[in-house]
């Protein structure tokens, strides 16, 4: 077993156990911390795949900014333990089998991807070529995302504003 495969197994186990823990935890803050573990593990996997820039963005934007926002809102709203209601039995009796079938089908399809070993190309891994592509081929989408973010900021401010009443 190579070092890379061992690293992959450790990181994959971390990610999956984090995701399972997200489901099992009853308190939202514990779920949020589990999600941060998943994101850190994914950043490690991106490094293994040779995508350093994406790994850095994953840590800085996802685990840093977005999850801090989540934790902040959970604390702001003083969210407590999830209360149990029995309003919808549909979710339990239809949702669970459906989810399991969906999961199995996804794995079935994914396993059919040709087991081709990942090849290393130095040009592929460089952040420089990623930047060139982003600012040449994808310049218009890139500028459009800045407008999207501006709209999102405006929307968040308008929504969260205190009512004048």
């Amino acid at each position, binding site marked *: 077993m190579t070092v890379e495969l061992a690293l992959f197994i450790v990181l994959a186990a971390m990610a999956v156990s984090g995701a399972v823990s997200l489901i099992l935890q009853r308190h939202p803050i514990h779920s949020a911390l589990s999600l941060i573990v998943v994101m850190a593990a994914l950043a490690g996997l991106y490094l293994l795949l040779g995508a350093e820039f994406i790994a850095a963005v994953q840590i800085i934007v996802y685990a840093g900014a977005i999850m801090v926002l989540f934790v902040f809102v959970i604390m702001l709203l003083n969210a407590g333990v999830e209360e149990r209601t029995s309003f919808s039995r549909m979710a339990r009796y239809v949702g669970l089998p459906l989810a399991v079938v969906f*999961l199995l089908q996804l794995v079935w399809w*994914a396993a059919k991807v040709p087991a081709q070993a*990942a090849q290393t190309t130095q040009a592929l891994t460089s952040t420089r070529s990623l930047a060139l592509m982003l600012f040449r081929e994808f310049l218009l989408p890139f500028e459009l995302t800045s407008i999207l973010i501006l709209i999102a900021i405006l929307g968040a401010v308008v929504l969260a504003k205190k009512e004048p009443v």
Partner: protein
Amino acid sequence: MVPVSYYIVLSAVLFGLGVVAFIFKRNIITMFMAIELMLNAVNLAFVAFSRMLGQLQGQVYVFFVIVVAAAEAAVGLAIIILIARNRESLNVERVDLLKL
């Protein structure tokens, strides 16, 4: 070298766990986190395919997905704050009426 199919299977498992979390959790914030988990799973598949095909487009798409996730988190959390203020509960089963 780790075969790319391992990464794709891991991505599928994470996505499926995200779906399960979305269906089972009753807390609106946790459901929102399940959506983030699914987005992350898709990102992993993008990067793995980008590696397999030797092309960088996949990583650019991941970049855009992260941007959209950030925008979504900002607006979504503002909506969650509004719901929590109006209903005084974060349980989605208590948000079943359009009218207050």
